[in-house]
């Protein structure tokens, strides 16, 4: 059987094929061809779409260009969530490539945060790391890090380093400490997609019960969103998806946190309606 480290590699090297098309109402000087790209699941849309932007800017008048944003079937895509999470939540049961619409006008301020530069993404990413560290290790790891360590971590993500490589390059073993299994709580975020609304629930969850048994994904769901646990008749209303897969409910939360957390150190779980067929 494969090694658990292979799981980390699969998670960090996961790619989603995407087809970007320009929104039909954008004014162009000539026809805009679609643009095809492999997107890293663990990165952020606005961080990895420079090529998309350049491609479409070639056919647009500079006066018609405002801040770029992305949409999937009418839903603006929040750049501050990892790409893999957005895909699992909105498009996991659809045909590939993922069809994303590109906009340069009418920025939906009520739905999206502005992203004028990569430094905004960096600030968001580092803030998520700090939050996760505060919850998991009472801030013990991030407090020890210097500015250059923060930069190194950010550059690692930006340049597509995998988890193993970050462990190797980080001075003082900060990345190793951040993802260390010696944590008090798992930081799980459940994104629930139903037909009526799309809430998310952030949950701190002890990986081990008071009597020493490992808590499982099923335990977490029973506590936070019981409807996602199949009923006695075996009927499954929801799919519970992490990085494009559906782990069994018996999977320990500790193991999931160590192996299927995103680089922001959160375990993002998508709960989506099960296909009806």
């Amino acid at each position: 059987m494969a090694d658990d480290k292979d799981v980390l590699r699969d998670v960090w090297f996961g790619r989603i094929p995407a087809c970007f098309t320009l929104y039909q109402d954008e004014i162009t000087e000539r026809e805009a061809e679609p643009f095809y790209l492999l997107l890293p699941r663990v990165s952020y849309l606005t961080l990895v779409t420079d090529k998309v932007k350049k491609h479409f800017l070639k056919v647009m008048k500079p006066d018609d260009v405002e801040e770029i944003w992305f949409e999937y079937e009418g839903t603006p895509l929040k750049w501050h969530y990892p790409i893999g999470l957005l895909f699992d939540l909105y498009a996991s049961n659809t045909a590939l490539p993922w069809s994303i619409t590109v906009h340069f006008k009418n920025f939906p301020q009520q739905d999206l945060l502005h992203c004028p530069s990569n430094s905004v993404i960096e600030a968001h990413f580092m803030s998520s790391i700090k939050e996760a560290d505060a919850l998991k290790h009472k801030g013990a790891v991030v407090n020890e890090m210097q500015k250059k360590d923060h930069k190194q971590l950010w550059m690692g993500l930006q340049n597509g380093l995998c988890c193993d490589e970050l462990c190797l390059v980080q001075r003082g073993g900060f990345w190793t400490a951040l993802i260390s299994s010696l944590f008090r709580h798992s930081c799980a975020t459940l994104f629930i997609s139903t037909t009526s609304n799309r809430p998310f629930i952030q949950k701190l969850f002890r990986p081990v019960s008071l009597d020493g048994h490992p808590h499982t994904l099923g335990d977490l769901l029973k506590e936070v969103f019981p409807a996602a646990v199949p009923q006695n008749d075996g009927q499954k209303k929801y799919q519970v998806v992490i990085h494009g897969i559906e782990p069994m409910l018996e999977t320990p939360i500790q193991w999931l946190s160590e192996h299927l957390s995103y680089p922001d150190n959160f375990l993002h779980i998508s709960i989506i309606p099960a296909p009806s067929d």
Partner: protein
Amino acid sequence: QSMSLFVSPAQTAAWRKQIFEQLSERSKREMDNFRHYEQAIEQSVWVKKGSM
């Protein structure tokens, strides 16, 4: 109060095996037919230093 499910060794093997299998299927589904697509970020060059 504990509400943990009892997890037997057989179940442990089952969930782990299922994750490996699903990740492998995911790679086939999401990457194998699309390797000709351009990468959003070029894979970093990783230089390993060592002595013979």
